[in-house]
C-alpha cells in the first residue's frame, strides 16, 4: 500500500499545490481511460460509470479536505475516491475481482470505500450516500471531532427523498456537512431542464435554510474556493452548504447508453471546456508551472495508473470460499 500523500490547499497557492491539483485531475482521467480500456478488452465485468470531463469537481472539493474529513460517493465515484487519496492498485484490483481489491471483489466499482482516507463508500443507490454523510457529520458533532463530511451526488440524486430528508436534518442540526452536487446535466437520459423547474440547482437550499452556491465545475480553482468556504463554515459550526458544480460527462451514462438523448454537438462543445486544459491555461497565465513540468506530471499520472493496472492484473482472484462468513462482522467476546 502506498502512503497517502495529500496536499490540502489552494491549487494556485504554490508550485506544490498546483502540481498536486493537476496530478490528481490527470490521475482520474487516466484511471477512467484505463477502465474503459479494460472493459473494452473484456477484462472487466459488470458495468462502468466514467467521470471523464468531471475531474475538476472531485479534485477541487478534496483539495479543501483533511485526511480525517469524510466523503460519501456515488456510482460515478472513481474520481472522488482517487482525489481523496485511495490506492490505485487496490481500486483496479477491485474492478478486476481480485482478492487485494478494496472490497475483496465483493463490491466492484460501485462500492469502493477506503477507511484510511475517510471514504465511507461509493453507492449504487442514487441518493443513498446523502443521509449517510449527514450521519457522519452528526457523529463528528457528537464526538466533537471537528471534521466535515462531504456527500458527492449527481443532479439526478437531488430529486430523491433521501436528499430532502438528509438536507433538512443537516439544516436544523447545523451539521458540518457539504452537499456537493455534480450537475453534469443528465441523470442517465433525464436532462436537468426536464427534471427540475428551477435553473440553479443550488437554489434547492432555499427551502431548507441552507446557503447554496453554483460554480463552474470544470474550473478546479473555482470549485476549490467554494469548497474551502463551505468547509470553513461547516467546521466553525455554521452548518451545511450546497455546492453545485456545473460540469458534463463525456461518456455515456454506462455501458448500455446509446446517447440518444443528446447531440454530438453538445458533447463536442463540452469537450472544449475540458477541465484539464482549463487549469493548465490558468497555470500558464500565472506562470506557476512550465510546460516541461506539466508534461512530467501527465507522465507521472500515466505511469502510476499503468503500474496499478499491471499490479492488479497480476494479483490473485477472489475466491468464493468464506463468503458466508463475510456477511456479519464477528461479535467480539
Amino acid at each position: 500500500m502506498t502512503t497517502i500523500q495529500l496536499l490540502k490547499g489552494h491549487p494556485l497557492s504554490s508550485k506544490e499545490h498546483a502540481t498536486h491539483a493537476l496530478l490528481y485531475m490527470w490521475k482520474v482521467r487516466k484511471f477512467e481511460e484505463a477502465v474503459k480500456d479494460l472493459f473494452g478488452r473484456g477484462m472487466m465485468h459488470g458495468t462502468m460509470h466514467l467521470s471523464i470531463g468531471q475531474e475538476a469537481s472531485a479534485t477541487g472539493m478534496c483539495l479543501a479536505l483533511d485526511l480525517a474529513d469524510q466523503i460519501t460517493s456515488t456510482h460515478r465515484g472513481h474520481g472522488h475516491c482517487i482525489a481523496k487519496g485511495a490506492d490505485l492498485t487496490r481500486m483496479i484490483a477491485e474492478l478486476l475481482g481480485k482478492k487485494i481489491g478494496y472490497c475483496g471483489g465483493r463490491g466492484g466499482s460501485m462500492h469502493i470505500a477506503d477507511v484510511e482516507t475517510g471514504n465511507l463508500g461509493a453507492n449504487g443507490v442514487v441518493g443513498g450516500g446523502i443521509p449517510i454523510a449527514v450521519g457522519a457529520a452528526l457523529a463528528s458533532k457528537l464526538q466533537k471531532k471537528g471534521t466535515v463530511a462531504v456527500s458527492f451526488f449527481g443532479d439526478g440524486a437531488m430529486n430523491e427523498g433521501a436528499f430532502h430528508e438528509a438536507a433538512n436534518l443537516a439544516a436544523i442540526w447545523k451539521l458540518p456537512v457539504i452537499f456537493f452536487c455534480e450537475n453534469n446535466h443528465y441523470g442517465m437520459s433525464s436532462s436537468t431542464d426536464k427534471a427540475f423547474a428551477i435553473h440553479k440547482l443550488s437554489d434547492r437550499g432555499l427551502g431548507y435554510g441552507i446557503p447554496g452556491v453554483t460554480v463552474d465545475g470544470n474550473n478546479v480553482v473555482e470549485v476549490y474556493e467554494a469548497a474551502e468556504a463551505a468547509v470553513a463554515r461547516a467546521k466553525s459550526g455554521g452548518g451545511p452548504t450546497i455546492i453545485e458544480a456545473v460540469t458534463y460527462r463525456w461518456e455515456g451514462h454506462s455501458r448500455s447508453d446509446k446517447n440518444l438523448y443528446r447531440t454530438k454537438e453538445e458533447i463536442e462543445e463540452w469537450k472544449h471546456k475540458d477541465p484539464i486544459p482549463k487549469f493548465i491555461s490558468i497555470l500558464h497565465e500565472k506562470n506557476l508551472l512550465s510546460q516541461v513540468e506539466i508534461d512530467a506530471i501527465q507522465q507521472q499520472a500515466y505511469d502510476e495508473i499503468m503500474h496499478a493496472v499491471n499490479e492488479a492484473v497480476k494479483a490473485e482472484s477472489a475466491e468464493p470460499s468464506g463468503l458466508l462468513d463475510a456477511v456479519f462482522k464477528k461479535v467480539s467476546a
Partner: protein
Amino acid sequence: MSEKSDTNNRMLTMAESLREAMTIAMTERDDVFLMGEDVGIYGGAFGVSSEMQNKFGEERVIDTPISELGIVGAAVGAALAGMRPIVEIQFSDFTAQAMDQIANQAAKIHFMLGGALHVPLVLRTPQGSGTGAAAQHSQVLETWFANIPGLKVVVPSNPADAKGLLLSAIDDPNPVIFLEHKLLYKFPGRDAVPEGSERIPLGVSKVVRRGSDLTIVATGIMVNKSWDVAEKLAAEGINITLIDPRTISPLDMEPIHESVRETGRLLVVQEGPSHGGFINEVIARVSESPTFGSLIAPIKRLAGMNIPIPYAPQLERAAVPQVEDIEVAAREIVKNWR
C-alpha cells in the same frame, strides 16, 4: 395448462414480448400509460420500452426524475383517478424507496377503504443476479411483495408467458408486481410467442413438463435452469415434472399437490436467499396438507446463499443455484429415496 404454440413460430426475447404486451394494451385502451425513469428515448435501462415513446408520445410514455416513491405514489393516485398506469422501476432493488406506496398504499387501499376505490396499477421491475452489478442491483425481493396481502405478484420465466401475463396484469383492477429477470430480457424462450392479444390468467401454475420420479417447483429464471436439468436427466431415465407457478401470489398449488402425490419427491428452487424466502410457502403448503403423506423423501430446497450478491463473476455465480447444483440435488433425491 400449457399454452398452445403459435403457428408462426415467432421467437421473441422477453424484452420484445413485454413491449408487445404493453403496446397491445395501450392500443386497446386509452387509460393505460407507462411511466418511469428513462423509459422514453432511452427505452428503459434494459430496452424494454424501446421506441414506445415515438409511437405513443410523451404523455403516454412518461420519463420521470429519479424519485421512485413519488413515481409509484403518482401512479397510485392516477390509478385511483381512473387511469391504468404501468410503472417501471429501473431495478427492483429500488422498490425499497417506494415500499410505502407499494405496501402501505397500493396494496391496502381497496380493502382498507371498504372497497370504495381500487388501484389498477402494474409495477414492472427487473430483478436477479448475473450481470456483475453487485449487491444493490441484483436482489430478488419477491418475498417482500408476496407477504403483503393485496398485491398480486408475477414472476415470468419466458417470453410467451411474460406477454400473456402482462396483458392480464394490466387488465387486473388490483396492483400487480411484475418481476422480470434481467438475464431473460435478451434471450428468446423455448416457445414461440403468439401474435394477438390472448391473456394468460394470473394464478394458474404451469406444468412445464411431466415425469413421475421427481417434482421440481421453480420460479423465474430457475425454471429455465431446471428445464436443462430435466432434459439431461431424462436421458438417464429420471423423469421430472417441472412446475412454474408463474404468479407467486396468488399461488396455484393444485398441480403441485397432484404431482407430488405421484412422485413422492419434491425439490423447490428459487434464486433469492433461502432464509425466509418465498419458496418456503410451497414447502409449507405441502407439509400442512394431505400431500404430506405421499412424500417418500425429505423436501429438498435450493436457494440463493444468505449473502448479499457479490460483484466478481466467480463469486456471483456461487451465490445462487446453478444448473449443476440443481442437477446434483435432483439426482440425489431420486437415487437416495426409492
